[in-house]
């Protein structure tokens, strides 16, 4: 292929956060770039180029399930053709109410700069699908593909426990704010 030959294009149809998008993309386009540049889902971010950091984690599956976590930098957009993708922007309820995992990260201070947070939240959603009541060790192992540089992970572990509680038993409707040390 000469340098001036465009790479082959492919037509993809991907359901992202409940909306079906139809696009023509270069075959080499990574899912994360497709999400960010074509669909405008900039909540999903790129933190590395070696699939180590997990900041780009989304859920991918067939259209009738929420799917499992994938690092969207390691998936081609064409591999998502006909699939359903859920990003951090598709987690909250239609009324804007936070998903249990989002809420738990907020309540337990499971984020600081927040750059790893979309991936961390999506990985947690998948972890809790597989294991609704994980131990500390299972959480630490389960999230070991997602790097965070701010929190030391401790409050992330706490947040996952709280999220697990909320998902098993239902979150309290009006969670009381902690206002004293």
């Amino acid at each position, binding site marked *: 292929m000469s*340098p*001036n030959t*465009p790479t082959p294009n492919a037509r993809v149809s991907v359901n992202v956060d409940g909306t079906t998008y139809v696009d023509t993309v270069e075959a*080499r386009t990574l899912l994360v770039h497709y999400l*960010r540049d074509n669909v405008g*889902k*900039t*909540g*999903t*971010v*790129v*933190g*590395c*180029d*070696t699939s*180590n*950091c997990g*900041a780009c984690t989304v859920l991918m599956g067939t259209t009738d399930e929420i799917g499992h976590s994938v690092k969207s930098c390691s998936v081609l957009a064409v591999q998502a053709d006909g699939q359903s993708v859920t*990003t*951090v*922007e598709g*987690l*909250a309820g239609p009324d804007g109410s*936070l998903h249990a995992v*989002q*809420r738990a*990260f*907020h309540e337990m*201070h499971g*984020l*600081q*700069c*927040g*750059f*790893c*947070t*979309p991936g961390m*939240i999506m990985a947690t959603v998948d972890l809790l699908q597989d294991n609704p009541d994980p131990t*500390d060790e299972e*959480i*630490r192992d389960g*999230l*070991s593909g*997602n*790097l*965070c*540089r*701010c*929190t*030391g*992970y*401790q*409050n*992330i*572990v706490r947040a996952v426990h709280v999220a697990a509680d909320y998902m098993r038993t239902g979150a309290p409707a009006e969670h009381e*704010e*902690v*206002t*004293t*040390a």
Partner: protein
Amino acid sequence: MTVTADAANAEVGAARRRKEDARLVTGRTRWTDNIVLPGMLHMAILRSPHAHARIVSVDTQPALSRPNVIAAFSGADVAATQGSLPCAWPVTEDIVHPDRPPLAVDTVRHHGEAVAVVVARDRASAVDALEAIEVNYEPLTPVLDLEAAVAEGAHLVHADKGTNKSYTWIFDSAEAGSGGAVADADAEVVIERRYIQQRLIPAFMEPRSVIVDPGAGDYTIWSATQIPHILRVFYALLTGTPEHKIRVIAPDVGGGFGGKLQVTPEEMITFFAAQRVGRPVKYTETRSDTMLSAHHGRDMIQDLRLTARRDGTVTGLSVKLLANMGAYLGLVGPGVPILGAFMYNAIYKFPAYRFECSGVFTNTTITDAYRGAGRPEATYAIERLMDELAVELNLDPIEVRRRNWIKAEEFPFTTVCGLVYDSGDYDKATDKALGLIGYDELRAEQQRRRTSEDPVQLGIGVSTYTEMCGLAPSRILGALRYAAGGWETAAVRVLPTGKVEVVTGTSPHGQGHETAWSQIVADELGVGFDDVEVLHGDTRSSHKGLDTYGSRSLAVGGIALVEACRKVRDKARTIAAHMLECSPDDLEFTGGAFRVKGTPEAAKTVADAAFAVFAAHDLPDGVEASLDADATFDPQTFSFPHGSHLCAVEVDTQTGKVNIRKYIAVDDVGKVINPMIVEGQVHGGVAQGIAQALYEEAIFDEGGTLLTGSLVEYTVPSSADLPEIISDRTETPATSNPLGVKGVGEAGAIAATPAVINAIVDALRPYGVDDVQMPATSERVWRAIRSAGGNA
């Protein structure tokens, strides 16, 4: 208007959940790379594959024929105008300070140095076209070893400078008059050690990104930076663009840890690119770019000599440092070891001290501030030495420290460096930590394991640290030849409906200033936490500021905020008095309102005053129709957080595997605005300190190629690699500022590294081990046991 009955100080001290989170947990974020402007182009950078080479020729022409390419240029094309990147901390008068062109012109001096760029319609086209650029290099011998670099006959990083030594900076307590001479110190015991501070990479999670919109000569620049205000000043100075025609915005910024405290080649190159093409240009680096080009941290050789009497009293400390600057001087790089210079004496009453540091050029990525910046290195050295002294004298490591540290009743205490520590209570913090870890039980278990020759040995590491925060009194910075001041500014604007806008000169990137600043304002003005909006990181809304680094934001910026609030309150008091038809002196501010003394139901809030000001129908004579105020605070001294960290490790002597069994962090950061945020800062700092001790090291091969150029090789720890941290606090307020705060951002990173290594060495003492090089990987620990001749 109703007056809430909340007690004063209801917000300060509360574990308020963060305002910042709402957008961060939902993905509605404004990272620089998320921003798309009409007509925006994308830039890619061609980087040097060599650590040291002469550039014979660069031909960017072939790239221009690639699809979607708008422009391509090299250092030669901008040589006349690109200038040199700044070093704002030339620590000595005769410092060797070579030019640092953003794009290399005739020589590349480190792997990854920027050589040429392509600007294209989309990022992929720009990256694709890089391969069409032809560069001929003539490789030169790289200078990589610190000691070899300063040896006679060394190859030179900068041939025209005739030396690889940038500077030598000396502090001697005898010369300074703050202590005795180390040569005269009683030397019944002498401990001499060499410690290596390996090179680290800050590895913030968000790769750096910059967009320059050249407008019509009025530039708007978005950058993932910690220092939008400082960056704006340097854009003006380096490009000749009038400062008022430059607006710098740091939108959501994904971590920094000092790593985004820099004026970068990429920021300048993107500016030139946008200028050339007359359209907005974005550059977002890959992680691989970050590892090569964003500054690294640490990388020092420490030669140490500690003298003491046999009763454990330290009589003197000499420190000789070689500090690797990398290929050029970074923004504050030369000053990093100097920040450490004042901390080697730590919490102790050493009577004599000498410090000498040489900054050295090598063909490596530049080094500069990384969480703690000089103070982790100093703390590591002295806390390792105190353990060695304890072993030499057969004393408990806590006991030898107690015999030397400043007692609570001795504050304020002037140290051998001449710094005045305002407050602290080292006994209290240490006793609390000892209780939390169960020190005596662990020592007993350690003895049992030693006696039974258990293959898994137990070690307990101690780190009793202090740090200087609240950078910094401008006068001291000036005396240290730092180019900028250390003040911070805040403005408070009360809107007609009583809502409050706060403009701060600090620039948070994970620290939660929007939350903490709201808590402060809520208490100061008697408004609701949710009624405060904190504006930051945009030079159009906050025209001045000195940004966020060095644990300064609360200890300096927070005080400016309090002072601005108090000015607003004074204005409001005058207006409230007029409304209540009394004298301002008859009012007290309590429960969120001005109340007539003795008649508390007669009350007016700041919001009441704000609406009165808005209408301005009936203001007292001579009172302006404004409830706005600003304040700039310049601290008189540093603040000195301290703490005691204890770490228990199990070391498998057959495999070298280290397992942190228990980690206790007791920190005294003075008064706390938000304990949840403080705890989070401690966790993150400790994680980075442990990472230095056990996991991370930037490694160059013998040709100067960075081997740890991605997150595959540079092992930032994951959740599975770190222990649970048990954190607690003592609270000895700073007396040097009205909030009593000290700063917490760097504490954990300073304290943790020696705690972990001391624990490992403590476990292995019976094997004859007295040091393990960081990072203490299983292999290194295993080899340390064997080379010590231990029987493992």
